[in-house]
């Protein structure tokens, strides 16, 4: 109850401050149109932003430990702020570098690029690099058991760390850094293959349905409707359980089955999109001209329709990749995805999840499961930034 009074009081105070701010600005700038027509809500937004910023700065500089007890809230907040600022700075440097080197076209591209997109591209390059060269980068093997278990991250011996294992080891003594790196290869690689498969299947059938229409369109669309009616995670869980039973002791077969199952389930979304995009392109006069010229189905789909559907399809590819990637992580978390001892981020989060309980008194211990979760989150955010930027670009070009 007390907190509620504080919140309401604070909001009223900020509203008052906003009104004073607007009045002051009108007087100070001699009624400039911007301040004259400024709605109170917007002024409130400015005041709110100022208050939030002040609070963040104040909180950032709070002591990290009071009488030997670590203040977990402050520590995690500092990590988050440093992380965000660090990534922003890195992507700024990345963008600046590519504005000066490279071809004329790429320079122009980077010059008009927002910082978020630069961040996304940088992260995707890093992830791709890491997953391709995982074997060379990782200090240890992904299945290697190295003796000391539960080494704390940070590498500080006073806190139970070991400089040999900068991010610590898991419960059976495998190096977490190496497993994160191999995890990129397994999780990202499999997600990429699965997404490509889903697009091949869904895209081809979707365009086919759009061009031919009629009973084929009806048949395919109703099948897709039926598939989409089943909650996708539960459906894939069910199918994976069956697949695991079929595969028996062959662990690699489970991975193959998983790729196909997720690809088929996700291709339904791709089908819907490419059918809708295709239908709006099929009615164009240039398609009619091509039909009247006597062109075949393949030419129509791949030479006339596909180039025009590329922008929305690429955007969907980015999003779909994230979803596939999260589905794989979820399935692995639930124990039916990528099979141990192969490293995988979803499995890592599950295996290390109980350490999250240490968060309030030992932040360095609690960070272990967050590393894998953070790796998933970063890639998802990065891909979405790039997708947003591409969508914006393609819609802007149509003007």
């Amino acid at each position: 109850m007390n907190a509620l009074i504080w919140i309401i009081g604070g909001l009223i105070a900020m509203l008052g401050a906003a009104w004073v701010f607007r009045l002051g600005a009108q007087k100070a700038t001699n009624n400039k149109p911007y301040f004259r027509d400024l709605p109170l809500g917007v002024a409130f937004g400015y005041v709110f932003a100022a208050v939030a910023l002040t609070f963040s700065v104040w909180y950032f500089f709070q002591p990290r430990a009071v009488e030997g007890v670590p203040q977990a809230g402050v520590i995690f907040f500092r990590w988050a702020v440093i992380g965000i600022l660090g990534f922003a700075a890195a992507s700024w440097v990345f963008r600046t570098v590519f504005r000066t080197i490279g071809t004329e076209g790429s320079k122009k591209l980077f010059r008009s690029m927002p910082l978020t997109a630069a961040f996304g591209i940088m992260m995707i390059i890093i992830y791709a690099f890491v997953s391709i060269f995982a074997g060379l980068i990782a200090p240890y093997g992904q299945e290697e058991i190295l003796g000391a278990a539960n080494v704390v991250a940070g590498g500080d011996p006073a806190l139970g760390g070991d400089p040999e294992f900068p991010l610590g080891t898991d419960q059976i003594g495998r190096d977490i850094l190496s497993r994160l790196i191999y995890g990129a290869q397994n999780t990202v690689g499999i997600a990429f293959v699965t997404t490509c498969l889903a697009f091949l299947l869904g895209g081809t059938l979707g365009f086919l349905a759009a061009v031919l229409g009629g009973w084929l369109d009806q048949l395919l669309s109703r099948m897709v409707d039926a598939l989409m009616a089943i909650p996708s995670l539960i459906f894939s869980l069910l199918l994976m359980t069956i697949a695991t039973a079929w595969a028996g002791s062959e662990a690699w077969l489970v991975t193959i089955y998983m790729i196909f199952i997720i690809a088929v389930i996700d291709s339904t979304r791709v089908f819907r999109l490419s059918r809708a995009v295709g239908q709006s392109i099929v009615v164009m006069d240039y398609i009619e001209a091509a039909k009247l010229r006597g062109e075949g189905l393949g030419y129509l789909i791949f030479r006339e329709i596909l180039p025009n559907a590329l922008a929305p399809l690429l955007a969907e590819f980015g999003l779909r990749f994230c979803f596939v990637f999260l589905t794989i992580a979820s399935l692995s978390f639930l124990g039916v995805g990528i099979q141990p001892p192969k490293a995988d981020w979803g499995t890592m989060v599950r295996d290390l999840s109980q350490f999250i309980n240490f968060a309030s008194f030992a932040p360095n211990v609690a960070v272990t499961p967050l590393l894998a979760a953070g790796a998933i989150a970063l890639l998802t955010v990065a891909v979405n930034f790039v997708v947003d930027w591409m969508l914006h670009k393609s819609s802007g070009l149509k003007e």
Partner: protein
Amino acid sequence: MSDLLLKIRDLKIEGRSDETWNPIINGIDVDLKKGEVLGMIGESGAGKSTVGLASMGYTRDGVRISNGSVVFDGVDLVTASAAVKRDLLGKRIAYVAQSAAASFNPAHKLIDQHSEGPVQHGVSSRTDSEQDGMELYRRLRLPNPDEIGFRYPHQVSGGQLQRAMTAMAMACRPDLIIFDEPTTALDVTTQIEVLASIRDIVEQFDTAAIYITHDLAVVAQMADKIKVLLKGDEVEEADTRTMLSSPKEEYTKSLWAVRSFERPAKPAINVKATPVVSIHNVTAAYGTVDVLHDVSFDIHAGRTVAVVGESGSGKSTTARCITGLLPPRIGHIEFDGQQLPLDYKKRDKSQLRQAQMIYQMADTALNPRKSIGETIGRPVEFYMGLTGKEKRKRVDELLAEIELEPTEYFHRLPSELSGGQKQRIGIARALAAEPKFIICDEVTSALDQLVAEGILRLLAKLQDELGLSYMFITHDLATVRSIADEVVVMKDGSVVEQGPKLDMFQPPHHPYTDLLLSSVPEMDPDWLTNLLQERGVDNIGDAAVDKM
């Protein structure tokens, strides 16, 4: 000077593109007295609509007024606060958009949208404004004025919607109305009715108006004075009669001269010769509804047959029957005396090659992701089997033929071309197949008059050089006059009248042909007045069509 209602001084407007502000309007002055109508004409991109909107103190997103003042009745709208503008707009200044169909909210009834303004501005109560709305509908000669307001926008026709929108603009009895191409999207017979009603009601209420259009003949009927714009600059301004009789500037003269292009008549057709295309008793249906009834006509070698009619008369459907996209239910198509398979899928490559098509909207007719070279090169490769250097050579020839510089345009995308250039590419693609016969579907109706004239001259030149036959679908009788040899008039899916052009433009006419011909606005500023006197308001436009 106190009777000046709107005074625009040195108005400069900029638009944002490629991270910089580029000028759109470079300093324009407008003076408008109470009750005066200013016609504003120019090509697309001249900045007519931008000036029109700016005279309400409004700009579109990404556009700003960088300089000058727009003084409406003593208030500068450029610097006025949002509250002041809110009070003026809708109440004392109103706007009528080009496409009423796109501007009405489809979810509300007409009368509800009509009374929204007056109620918001506190001009009148809801019941009063509804009563007034019906009165306005009556004055605008809408059918069933007491009931039409209770319909939704999709339940009335385009011309009626445009008049309902004019009524809506009139709802608060504004001092100034901006008409932004209100009749451009309408058929001639509908247009004339809307024009008559707009002129009538503007006179009745002594409203000042800015009438934006690209059609000179229309503006001649409506305006007291005319301002010509070109690329954001004023070319000249004068009162309507002076402007029409003695334009000063070269550009204005060239605009006036457009309508003079006319091909000499060709000798009579040899009756025994086999026509290139012959349409025999074609009846076609969409679903179970017949949209074409027993259509027959011939197209001879080297001739242009213009198919004329209003929207929905079956012109384009006839074209779809010829190309085989819509196989006729009864009847057949002959090409050089040979009967063609009805469905285009059953025709072979050489049959498809012989009949090509040019489309109305060049924007949708060219694949936006393909370069000009690819677009024109494809039929060359597909039909002629040319590849590599030979193909390039042929494409260059074709580009030269449509008067575009090959090296400059070969690698361009359609988005890097103007409307007229795109239409030329459409022509080149059709020529690439080396056909005998080309269907031109409203190829000039989306273009500015000067550009359209260029396209017509090009088509005429190509016909003379290559001996092509055209089927020229259009609703514009001025185009027919300039290019056709024979004319086919269609109405409701049937051929009403057909014959050589000279006969068609001479009386006696079929009553429908007569109505079409009489509805085409002429440059004479007294034309509409005379026509109304001659025929009476009930015998023009759609009302007359309905009587037939």
